[in-house]
């Protein structure tokens, strides 16, 4: 019997993803033997760092986990604290939170769509090479991102790691006039976002489908961002407080991140594809109109088309921000009073990459006794590995460099935030 033909493809550094990690794929006789995502950024021990700190510090500490989605961390931690302490915040504060979160979606999605993901579809090494041939397109992406930054500055105090956010609300609420100044840039950004949808929808897609369960937050009357119930396309419908009954995490030796599974051990996916599948009917009329114009149906299970879904979400985030600004009334007080309680609080929001769950246990003076943070990338890790396996199966006849490129693209489809997941990327394809 002849020796099995082994083939190894390896990438030591996976560019255009957030954070650092590696991937290896081993093929034996053209069949996928093993697909692994390895994460070697040291675990961040944020959960341990939070123990012994005041519950009021959680938003600022956890916002430091990620420079791309700090608002997600702030909002999930705040939801958890307010859940436990029984706080109801006023409508203007709720609106401001959603508006700030729209800023983060615009920043994050514009960065991913234009700088990280689009070069894959257009055959460029990266954004710099793309900018040399398509400066106007890249300029449009930067302009979109800048508008997101501006929202973050006005409401959050800074474009990265906002400092104006607290349990109960904000340190200072912006005036109507301050928000009005954002209307014109947001109107331009909304136009740019519509163009983004038309542009990305014209890319070539390999026509593939992700099979696993799709999980996202859901709200009855709106596209869920800063809260909601945990729902899936297979019938899950649970309050955030019951998250632990439906999902668990396990440690995998090769990775510093924990891998999440459904309680029956199965794989699931969160993020734009899940949100769109479960909430497309609650997008704004303009977002639905643009999605219909380019033929983006719901559900969309093609991870390669996630770039189009993100683009539609960009339209939505701009549209929604404009709506929120239009209806904003300055609150009587920038924050509600919050008295700590002993017990356990749960919070979840839709980070740009998907559902972000926080759970805290406090003692009666508000000291954090225990913290659990489940970021979207660790929830998506198994789904990404399964998808990669299928991609390699389908494209194994490609030469190593080409196969490597397809694999990298497949990973970037998920916009993995490896910093958050260690809580990620080198790429290794082993053809054995």
């Amino acid at each position, binding site marked *: 019997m002849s020796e099995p033909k082994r083939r190894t493809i390896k990438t030591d550094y996976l560019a255009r993803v*957030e954070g650092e990690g590696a991937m290896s794929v081993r093929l034996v006789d053209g069949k996928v033997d093993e697909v692994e995502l390895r994460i070697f950024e040291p675990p961040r021990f944020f959960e341990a760092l939070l123990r012994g700190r005041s519950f009021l510090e959680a938003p600022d500490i956890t916002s430091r986990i990620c420079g791309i989605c700090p608002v997600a961390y702030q909002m999930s931690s705040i939801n958890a604290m307010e859940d436990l302490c029984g706080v109801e915040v006023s409508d203007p504060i709720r609106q401001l939170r959603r508006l700030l979160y729209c800023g983060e979606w615009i920043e994050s999605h514009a960065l991913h769509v234009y700088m990280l993901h689009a070069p894959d579809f257009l055959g460029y090494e990266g954004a710099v090479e793309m900018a040399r041939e398509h*400066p106007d397109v*890249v300029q449009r992406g*930067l302009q979109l991102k800048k508008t997101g*930054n501006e929202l973050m500055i006005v409401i959050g105090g800074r474009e990265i790691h906002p400092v104006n956010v607290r349990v109960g609300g904000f340190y200072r609420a912006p005036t109507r006039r301050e928000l009005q100044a954002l209307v014109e840039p947001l109107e331009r950004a909304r136009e740019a976002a519509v163009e983004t949808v038309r542009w990305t929808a014209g890319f070539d897609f390999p026509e593939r489908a992700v099979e696993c369960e799709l999980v996202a937050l859901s709200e009855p009357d709106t596209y869920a961002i800063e809260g909601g119930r945990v729902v899936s396309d297979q019938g899950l419908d649970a309050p955030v407080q019951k998250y632990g009954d439906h999902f668990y995490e396990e440690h995998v030796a090769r990775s510093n991140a924990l891998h999440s599974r459904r309680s029956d051990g199965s794989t699931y996916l969160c993020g734009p594809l899940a949100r769109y599948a479960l909430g497309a009917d609650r997008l704004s009329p303009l977002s639905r109109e643009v999605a219909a114009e380019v033929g983006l149906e719901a559900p969309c299970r093609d991870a390669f088309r996630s770039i189009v879904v993100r683009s539609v979400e960009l339209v939505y985030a701009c549209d929604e921000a404009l709506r929120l600004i239009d209806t904003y009334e300055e609150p009587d007080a920038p924050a509600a009073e919050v008295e700590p309680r002993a017990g356990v609080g749960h919070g979840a929001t839709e980070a740009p990459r998907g559902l972000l769950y926080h759970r805290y246990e406090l003692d009666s003076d508000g000291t954090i006794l225990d913290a659990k943070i489940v970021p979207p990338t660790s929830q998506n890790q198994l789904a990404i590995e399964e998808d990669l396996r299928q991609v390699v199966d389908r494209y194994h006849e490609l030469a190593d460099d080409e196969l490597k490129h397809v694999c990298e693209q497949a990973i970037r489809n998920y916009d993995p935030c490896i910093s958050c997941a260690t809580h990620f990327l080198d790429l290794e394809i082993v053809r054995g």
Partner: protein
Amino acid sequence: MSRTVVIGVGNAYRGDDGAGREVARLVQDRVSDELDVVVCELEPTRLIDAWDGAQAALVVDAVASGAEPGTVHRFDATREALPSREFRSSTHALGIGETIELARALGRLPEQIVVFGIEGEVFGSGTDLSPGAQAGVERAVELVLEEAGCTSRR
């Protein structure tokens, strides 16, 4: 506008990564009337906006190339890309080298752009600079002022 802008880049909460910010702060204290000073985290649109309209940009960042801590590297990026050894890709998608190349491709670089890299040592959590980086900061301030033609203002 034909001014020079000094841009200090870094994360103030990651030890020596804050060295560039500290240089910008000290430069501002000394010559705020002559130079524009911007302190920011490494974010591409923010960085490009910071040097838009300026004739020259002096960017100060921390580096980890393996040189002696406190060493101040000077790179003129006006015509060529930064060396990748000192300015490796950031974990945040676009590093300073890529941001400069992006701006070059878009025609949004100032006439002159010089990057000073302060060799750091400790990049863990915290707001303090290591003694080596602190010494590098002091040297970098003088180099920035000299580059900007402000050496007389001490």
